[in-house]
């Protein structure tokens, strides 16, 4: 790749700026010095170049201060391998940001291939260098201690931290674990895990531990139960001693009571509460005697009252007759209530009936009819209602008939004369519509013209035989594309395979030369040779011992030296043998690769030839010469395909136009026939427009005809309605006539009837009221007659005159009622006195019986007892005291037996036998206390064991320890992983660096030496490589042959060595896989002119194999470059 021009279109402070890097001819070095003062934008330009190659980074952009990030645009013209000069642009989009000169997106693969897959960081590390990185690189390679592999790696990759990296990884691994290390991460962690494990084991309540604790608890429980039993035994003996003491005391008391009882009366023990019972009976007997005297007095007084209220013999018949009168009713009402007011009410009712008669006569007068007609004119309410409804119906029907006739007359006037009936134009309309669809030919004519024009264009570049080619059949487009694509691929593969074969041939030659060189080195002696040398030495020694001559001595000496040499070379030749082994391996690999490349080349060449024949065949089919290029096939095929499609389009368009013209003529004929059928003139020139006019007027004709037909239907409907109303009116009049035919009214018209109807309703009401009054007067007269009859019957019971019953029946009835009431009251008093007397006799008898019973009960209280000569109260006092003594005796006996029965019998007998014993209680007290102490101690021990057992379950859960244990293990797992990775990484890296030294030394060391000497002469004359136990080391050679290890060089010298390594690395990369622009930013500002001139010459070396771009703000370096590098390009930074 080469950068021809950098376009800073909108980037940083630049707008439409460009930096052109001129190309150099005639084998001149491709070096461009870009000059600009500080802040001229050199860093901006380099950053822009990187953005172009690798795309903008995400996030804020450091150069988006003048333009928005989204507006940034950078471009360049690059020489890309296989493509030549290409103009590219890059914007700030996240995808498809690489554009061509017309801002069309391009695939990143265009650049990816040219950059050999390097990313931005790798490019920066390998192909850029500034003063700072040069100085720092020099310092850092000191850490490599001259290790050749590390130094060459720094040159190739630009990375100088390999030594520090390996140290860091080693330190990381050692920090985790190191044999015999005391403070490593692993050791510390394992110690803590041991502690945790110990604590967890001690704390964990396992099944075994629980079993042990349970055993302890059960043992303590058993001891406790044993001590408790001993305590119980002590308590029992103590209780037995107390019981024996009770027995002893109560027995004395019994003897004393027995002596006292001999002074009291004999007899059984009094029942409970006998004393109170005797006192109660004495009092009760006295009360009952007093009650007997009072009852005798009451009986005498009541006998007097009975005799004073004797019974009335007439009371019963009088009461029966009065009850009968009370039961009688007149018209549903009690007779007595009615008869009492009847006489006064009767006269008033006669006055009311006379007034009714007068009002009836007045109504008849208003109706102008005689009183004889009254019975005919008094109608029922239903008849009156029928007459009213019939009158109203006649009036309503007459009005409806008149209205219907009016509407009919109006409609007939509005209908007017009938219009002409319209014709059926549907056939004409269909024919006209059909003609309209085909009448316009413009679009078909236009399509035909356009198809003809397209065909002309399509066949413009084709031979005259194009039609024949198409008719013969074209190959499929996919076939053409596949063949062209495959041809291009195979051509590229062929070139690549040829290059590959040449490359592998060169590789084989190089590998073979190296193997031969390694084989020639004495250090490559193998073990078989050393064994052979040893055998030779031994044989010559034997020969020498046998001969002991100068010759045999020389031979032995030679053999001995040869053996020593072989041994020495063998011992120092480990690496040489490895190199020989590697060289042989590389030679075999190179040979295999070359064979594979040849086979592949032959295969591709065969396929390429076969494909060429197919291309010739396709070329003939599409009218091209047989030697046409594959890339031309697709274009010709496309042209022929387009021409075929255009010809087909033209034929189709012409056929469509012709068809449309025929359809138009047929439609006009059909229209003419349809017009003839409806009477239109078919000869006129413009038949379609006349037909359209008729069709347009058809609607208005049809609407007028429809309107007249609707009016005619309306008149017919109204005529029917008028007839119906007349019939209903006649029916109503007939109905009214039938209702009024028998009425003797002077005016029976509907109007006359409407006037007479109120009077007829009043007449009906007055007549009904008079009928009710007549009925009431008859009822009053029946009540008065019945009352007088009752009074007569009462007179006969009492034995008085019946005349009084006719004159004043009410007084007779009242007297009878008074007599009956007095008799009833006397009966009540007599009955009450009789009942009270019987009660007094009963009370007297009960008191007497109670007194006898109490006396008997009192006698029973003393049954079987002595001291009968005493009054009941004194007697009972004696007996009660006797019984108290007896009870005290029984209690004492019971207590001593109870005491004996409550304790162990054996212990009781034992203790009773000891009595009297004054110290026995104290002895037992001491025994009991000792047992109590023993029991309490056992109880405490049992509780402690129980507590320990319970606490084992309740103890705090040590999940914290388990969690810490798990966490430490996870940390150690992670640490172990990282340590293993670090240690394996160091192991692999050291091996790789040895390989790198072996692989690159031949190709790079010479470049390094030349560059180093060029910059440092005459202080240094070369570099050399020392083989040491720990590997190969680079040393500097000073004039006189003295060597200096790298780490002992000055800082400046190491910087120059680093520069030399980088230049060698660049040249190695440029050789394979290919050159990329190397950007150097003011790296020589600290060099003196001599060294700067030497460095510029080295830049020219870069320019011979690739492209070197030097940024500088030192004008003298520009001049120095012009002097040093023929044809160097110098450009200024754009403003």
């Amino acid at each position, binding site marked *: 790749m080469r950068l021809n021009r950098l376009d800073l279109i909108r980037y940083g402070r630049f707008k439409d700026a460009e930096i052109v890097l001129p190309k150099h001819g005639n084998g001149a070095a491709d070096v461009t010095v870009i000059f600009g003062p500080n802040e001229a934008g050199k860093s901006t330009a380099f950053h822009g170049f990187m953005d172009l190659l690798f795309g903008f980074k995400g996030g804020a952009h450091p150069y988006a201060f003048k333009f928005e990030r989204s507006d940034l645009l950078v471009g360049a013209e690059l020489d890309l391998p296989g493509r030549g000069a290409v103009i590219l642009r890059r914007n700030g989009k996240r995808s498809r940001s690489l554009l061509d000169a017309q801002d069309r997106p391009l695939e990143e693969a265009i650049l990816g291939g040219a950059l050999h897959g390097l990313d931005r960081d790798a490019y920066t590390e390998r192909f850029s260098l500034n003063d700072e990185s040069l100085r720092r690189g020099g310092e850092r390679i000191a850490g490599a201690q001259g290790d050749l592999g590390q130094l060459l790696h720094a040159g190739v990759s630009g990375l100088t931290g390999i030594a520090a990296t390996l140290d860091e990884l080693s330190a990381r691994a050692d920090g985790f674990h190191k044999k015999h290390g005391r403070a490593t991460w*692993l050791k510390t962690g394992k110690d803590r895990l041991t502690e945790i494990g110990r604590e967890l084991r001690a704390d*964990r*309540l396992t099944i075994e531990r629980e079993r042990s604790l349970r055993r302890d608890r059960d043992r303590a429980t058993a001891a406790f139960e044993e001590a408790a039993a001993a305590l119980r035994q002590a308590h029992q003996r103590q209780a037995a001693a107390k019981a024996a003491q009770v027995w002893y005391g109560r027995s004395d008391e019994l003897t004393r009571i027995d002596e006292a009882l001999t002074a009291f009366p004999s007899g059984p023990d009094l029942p409970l509460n006998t004393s109170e019972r005797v006192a109660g009976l004495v009092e009760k007997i006295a009360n009952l005697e007093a009650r007997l005297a009072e009852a005798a007095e009451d009986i005498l007084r009541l006998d007097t009252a009975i005799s004073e209220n004797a019974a009335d013999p007439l009371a019963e018949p009088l009461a029966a007759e009065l009850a009968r009168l009370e039961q009688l009713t007149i018209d549903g009402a009690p007779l007595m209530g009615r008869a009492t007011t009847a006489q006064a009410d009767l006269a008033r009712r006669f006055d009311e009936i006379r007034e009714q008669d007068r009002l009836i006569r007045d109504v008849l007068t208003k109706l102008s009819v005689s009183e004889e007609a009254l019975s005919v004119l008094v109608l029922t309410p239903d008849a009156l209602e029928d007459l009213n409804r019939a009158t109203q119906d006649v009036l309503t029907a007459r009005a409806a008939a008149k209205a219907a006739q009016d509407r009919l007359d109006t409609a007939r006037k509005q209908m007017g004369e009938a219009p002409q009936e319209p014709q059926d134009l549907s056939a004409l309309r269909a024919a006209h519509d059909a003609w309209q669809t085909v009448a316009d030919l413009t679009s078909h004519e236009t399509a035909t013209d356009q198809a003809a024009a397209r065909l002309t264009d399509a066949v413009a570049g084709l031979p005259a035989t194009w039609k024949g080619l198409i008719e013969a059949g074209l190959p499929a487009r996919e076939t053409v594309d596949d063949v062209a694509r495959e041809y291009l691929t195979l051509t590229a593969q062929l070139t690549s395979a040829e290059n590959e074969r040449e490359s592998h041939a060169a590789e084989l030659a190089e590998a073979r030369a190296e193997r031969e060189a390694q084989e020639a080195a004495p250090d490559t002696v193998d073990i078989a040779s050393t064994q052979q040398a040893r055998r030779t030495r031994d044989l010559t020694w034997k020969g020498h011992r046998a001969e002991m001559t100068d010759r045999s001595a020389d031979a032995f000496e030679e053999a001995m030296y040869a053996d020593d040499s072989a041994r020495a070379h063998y011992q120092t030749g480990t690496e040489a043998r490895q190199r020989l082994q590697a060289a042989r391996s590389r030679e075999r690999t190179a040979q295999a690769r070359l064979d594979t490349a040849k086979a592949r080349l032959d295969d591709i060449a065969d396929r390429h030839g076969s494909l060429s024949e197919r291309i010739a065949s396709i070329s003939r089919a599409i009218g091209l010469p047989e030697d046409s290029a594959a890339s031309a096939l697709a274009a010709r095929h496309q042209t022929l395909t387009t021409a075929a499609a255009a010809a087909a389009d033209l034929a189709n368009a012409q056929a469509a136009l012709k068809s449309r013209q025929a359809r138009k003529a047929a439609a006009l004929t059909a229209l003419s026939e349809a017009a003839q059928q409806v009477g239109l003139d078919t000869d006129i020139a413009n038949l379609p427009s006349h037909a359209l006019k008729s069709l347009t007027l058809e609607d208005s004709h049809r609407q007028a005809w429809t309107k007249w037909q609707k009016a005619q239907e309306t008149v017919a409907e109204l005529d029917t309605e008028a007839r119906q109303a007349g019939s209903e009116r006649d029916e109503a009049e007939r109905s009214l006539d039938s209702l009024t035919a028998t009425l003797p009214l002077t005016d029976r018209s509907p109007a006359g009837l409407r006037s007479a109807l109120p009077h007829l309703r009043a007449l009906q009401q007055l007549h009904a009221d008079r009928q009710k009054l007549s009925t009431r007067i008859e009822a009053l007269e029946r009540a008065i007659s019945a009352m007088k009859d009752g009074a007569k019957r009462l007179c006969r019971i009492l034995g008085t005159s019946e005349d009084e019953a006719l004159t004043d029946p009410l007084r007779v009835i009242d007297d009878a009622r008074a007599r009956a009431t007095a008799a009833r009251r006397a009966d009540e008093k007599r009955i009450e006195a009789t009942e009270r007397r019987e009660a007094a006799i009963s009370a007297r008898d009960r008191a007497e019986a109670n007194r006898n019973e109490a006396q008997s009960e009192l006698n029973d209280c003393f049954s079987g007892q002595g001291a009968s000569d005493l009054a009941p109260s004194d007697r009972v006092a004696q007996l009660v005291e006797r019984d108290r003594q007896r009870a005290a005796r029984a209690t004492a006996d019971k207590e001593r037996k109870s005491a004996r029965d409550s304790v162990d019998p054996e212990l009781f007998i034992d203790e009773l036998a000891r009595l009297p014993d004054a110290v026995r209680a104290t002895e037992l007290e001491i025994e009991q206390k000792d047992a109590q102490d023993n029991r309490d101690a056992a109880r405490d021990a049992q509780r402690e064991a129980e507590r320990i057992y319970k606490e084992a*379950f309740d103890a705090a859960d040590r*999940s914290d320890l388990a969690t810490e244990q798990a*966490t430490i293990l996870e940390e150690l797992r992670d640490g172990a992983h990282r340590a*293993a*990775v670090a240690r394996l990484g160091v192991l692999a*890296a050291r091996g790789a660096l040895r*390989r790198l030294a072996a692989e690159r030394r031949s190709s790079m060391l010479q470049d390094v030496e030349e560059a180093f000497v060029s910059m440092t002469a005459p202080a240094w004359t070369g570099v050399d490589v020392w083989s040491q136990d720990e590997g190969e080391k680079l040393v500097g050679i000073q004039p006189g042959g003295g060597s200096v290890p790298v780490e002992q060089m000055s800082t400046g010298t190491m910087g120059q060595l680093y520069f030399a390594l980088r230049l060698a690395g660049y040249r190695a990369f440029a050789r394979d896989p290919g050159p990329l622009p190397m950007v150097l930013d003011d790296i020589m500002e600290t060099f003196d002119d001599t060294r700067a001139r030497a460095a510029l010459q080295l830049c020219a070396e870069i320019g011979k194999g690739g492209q070197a771009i030097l940024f500088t703000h030192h004008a003298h370096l520009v001049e120095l470059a012009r002097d040093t590098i023929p044809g160097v390009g110098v450009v200024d930074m754009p403003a």
Partner: protein
Amino acid sequence: MRLLISADIHLGSPIRSAALRNPELGERLKQASRDTFTGLVDLAIVEQVDALVLAGDIFDNDHPDLKSRAFLIAQLSRAAEAGVPTVLIRGNHDALLDHRAHGELGPNIHLLHKGTPTVEIAGVAFHGLSFDAAHETKSFLPDYPVPVPGKRNVGLMHTSLDGAAGHDPYAPCSSKDLMANGYDLWCLGHIHAPFEKVSGPVLAVMPGIPQPRHFGERSGGTVTMVTLADGPPEFQRHDIGRMGFAECALDLTECTNQQEVLRSLLDGLRAARVDGRDTAVRLQVISDRFATEMISELAGELLENIDGVYLDKVKVVAPPAKPGAVPDDLVRLMQEELDESGFRLAASEMLEDLRLALPAEIADELDEDHLDSLLAEAIAEVSKTLHARGAE
């Protein structure tokens, strides 16, 4: 009826994560399995479920402690006193639940086994069989009681569902057979990742481990609430775990400096945060410039200011090589070195030395089988460390 279903509690088994090196988190989660179980019982009481169902592995064989049994009884008794009975079975970790050796658990705590395979609660029949040994290679299903006619039937089983019969030592059982057994609901245990299976009206619930113990169990942390009504059983998962594990995958290939790395890490770690619980994050980073050590340090610094998120582990892998890219000389030669038998021998010996120094519990981390992957990581680590130094 509503049931709260859980399994695989593994009482006493700690969380295994380097995240717990944080003192506050370590203190907070030192009894995570117990605290989670207490939370589970709280949930059962608050929701007033009709039964708490535990489908085995309540304990952990690696942590045999009768204190855990006492804790279990205390918690289940608390639930029983609040009106929530418990039905449970033994799993392959539940020697401490052996009723013959240690007695019954208490009233309203029903341990189902061969002698008592069925208990009825509120008209629903619960059936279950327990592990009598750590390994059972036969399916338990043929020995389960037939469904009780006219009642809802619920089964409890500890099984490696669909495991290979005769080979899998955890009562393997075909899920097809299970769903066709005639029960309405299966409460399962043993598989620590939760899932549910529905087949017509039958539901099988694997509630998962309620408190995940390591990154591999990150899908756990739940219990399942099931409602048995007239239709098919309905289920709903509830988060219960005190700490979860999450993966945070970040591509840092575009980052060229620490500030950009910090920004990406901050975004990724914040996104891993879950309100109401702690989260241990495993960082999976793609980068060819930033080594594991550096990413760990930067993430650690950031997490000091992000509540509830902690670092479990960091793994950095290199991005895939671009097609046609010229390989880095050092990387290429290191890879060639791996093919040398002498190198492999030395690497194996070095690995064995380190492995032998490790506690036995974690020695598997450096098994010989891991040599190739460790070597691949080693090459990447050298490259990243070297490039990181180059960028300094």
